[in-house]
């Protein structure tokens, strides 16, 4: 059972990291448009790259 005492705190750290990433993603608007962004991979595939659209303020 010794390994649990190491692995569980590691899991806790990973969860904290995930939550920090989640909050960052929400703050920078990663969830703002879940449909349109999916098409970017198709539309940007060929041809010259367009400048990325302006970041949401804040």
């Amino acid at each position, binding site marked *: *059972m010794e390994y649990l005492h190491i692995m569980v705190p590691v899991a*806790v750290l990973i969860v904290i990291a995930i*939550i920090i990433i989640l909050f960052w993603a929400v*703050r920078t608007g990663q969830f703002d448009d879940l449909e349109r962004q999916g098409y970017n991979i198709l*539309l940007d595939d060929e041809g010259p790259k367009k400048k990325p659209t302006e970041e949401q303020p804040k």
Partner: protein
Amino acid sequence: MSNEELCFHCFQPIPRGVDLTTTIDGEAQPMCCYGCQAVAETIVEQGLSHFYKYRDIDGNQGQALIPEELVGLDEQLIAYDDAEIQKEFVLIQNDTSSASLAVEGMTCAACAWLIERQLTNHAGVEKVVVNATTDRIHVTWKAENTSLSSILKSIHRVGYKALPFQQADIEEQYERQRRSYIRRLGIAGIASMQTMMVAVGLYFDDIDATTRLYFWWVSLLFTAPVFVYSCQPFFKNAWRGLRSKSLNMDVPVSLAIIFAFVASFYATLTDTGQVYYECVTMFAFFLLAGRYLELLARQKAITNAANLMKLIPAIAEKQTDDGWQKIMVKHLEPDDVIQIRPGETIPVDGLLLSEQGWCDEAQLTGESRPIAKCSGDVIYAGSINQENPIRLQVTHTHQNTLLASIIHLQDDALGQKPRVVQLADQVSKYFVLATLIIATITYIGWHFVAPEKAFWTVLAVLVATCPCALSLAAPTAMSGAVSRLNQSGILLKEANVLAALPAIKTLCFDKTGTLTEGRFSILSQWNQCYEKQAENEAIAAALEFASEHPIAQPFRRLAKPVELKEVTNIPGLGVEGNVGHANYRIGSLDFIKQWHPSADSPLAQANVFLATPDALIAAWRVDDELRRDAADVLKWCHEQGFRTVMLTGDSQERAQEIAGPLELDEIHAQLKPQDKLELLRGFQQQGPVLMIGDGINDAPVLAQADASITFASGSDLAQAGSDVVILNGELIAIRRLFNTAKQARRVIRQNFAWALGYNGIILPLAVAGFIGPLWAMLGMSTSSLIVISNSLRLLRRQNY
């Protein structure tokens, strides 16, 4: 016009004689006009041609972006008392003022009731209408007795944030709410995975005491953020409900969460009893998911409603000593002189100073033909200038225009709109009360039988009967239906409309722009020599390119124009020009009569004529055309047994012309917005009414009807007042809407039957103490999953 081929870019039929193509991905695609060709070529040049591959044809009506107006929102509330600022959103009539406010944090009808109560008691407030679906307050007050800032403070005191409505304002509030829900949902989701993982370990009996306690502490670590952060919305709503002395679904939810957490926490501290951390986290996750779905549907509504703001152009050209100067429309004063270019919407009511002008008032009155205006005539805000720049003398500034009065008629109607009683709200109100009573009785009963088990049994009762499946039953089915309708180009602004539709008895149609296309097309034609038809069309197209009149539009698409010289446009009459050496005139009969005084119309109801100095050579009847699918839709309506009514502002004769072949049950013509509203209220006495319209003059009836549908091409005001916006311009969407609504109702009923049936079985077992909180939680989750899966069936695309 019989050409089968459609423009690859805009899907409009291609005019005869036009042979334009653009090479897209190696294939020559047909184009209807030079405009489309230029656009398509630019797209290809930029290497963006896969736009055509992936574009959504059903809902291709792109939402125009509105630049946010920069408004300092951090001003103190006192700033809202400033007369200059109030001018933007406050309407003053006699000695009372009224304004619309946006409220943050309103989640249910009880909240609306609370605010309404609070403000009714506020001295100086005359009238309050709180709309829980749009989260807006319309308040009327006496300026001498109270100030707007004190009203705002008063709302603040009951726990809501209310601010005068600005377009970007409420959208931002929704955005904030949505983001906070994602955060709460994310934490609850991650924590529930962790606690469930730990819980699996705890299920084994051979676990030693130290490890068990260690696991308990780990679970506590994961559950604490869920309890403190993710569950906040439930606690807040429950508290608000209790303070307004009403029970909402959040009361038992909060009780169950608090009990389960506190008991587990106590068990962990003292190392005795049982823990139920995984119940808390899973529970929070499921409930938040339901709330999030609901929020998304409502946010979509707001985005559409906000379009209202672009109705009145903000800038006008005012005559000053230094020539024409651009100023803010809100700074216009009566007696200012302004200039309006062709195609622009008129910002304020005023008197025409120019000699003559043509105004399209279809949006305001339903009259489908442009109105000739002479010097001194009144021009209304919201109508569109058709030809030549005109000058106006301002008579009413924008809060007091005819347009503004229609907007207020609409706001009033919205307040009186019959409320769809949601089955879920009705059921859950009694359900919550019953649960709380049963839980109390269970506790008292067990207290006498086995006091040590009383607490855990009550917890099991609360968790097992949690209205989780109940609260998911309607929102999941609704969002499934809404999302499928969206895919087929039908945008629901109000998910409630699906609940209202199956009860509808009467269908009211507007004429211009609803049953008809709302724009001119050529209905019939006459040619002196039949062989010369193509030639005549080419000449007509060329001549009409010189005219800005809307009646000229269909001719430009008729054929490829020929070369033209010495063109003169005579506003109000027609166009004259030379093709080769021959002289031609196109225009009204009066214009032709200048050449041929004895000319007579060779075609019934013809209104455009082409002539040479020698003879009248062609005539056309140009009018508003019936929608392609109008006849099919009306046939379907009659099959379904609906009563069909036409409400139009246009003349009786023209209404009859359109309604005759469609066999509408009733026709009411020459109606003002107020008349339409009164007629519709009359119909509502006999049963729920669906209104379909698109003009500004339809806006109040659309708001008043039990359910309303408009088109994306319609006025912004109509869109603001409607529950449903049809994006692809197909009237037949009505049928799909009704079918989906019926299907959604069926699914909701199935869900309710399941949720209530499950609770009926589990409750006696939980009360008797046969079910521990853990099994109660598992049962509750399974029940919720079944409800969600059932609702997801609605997402499947079906063909009607």
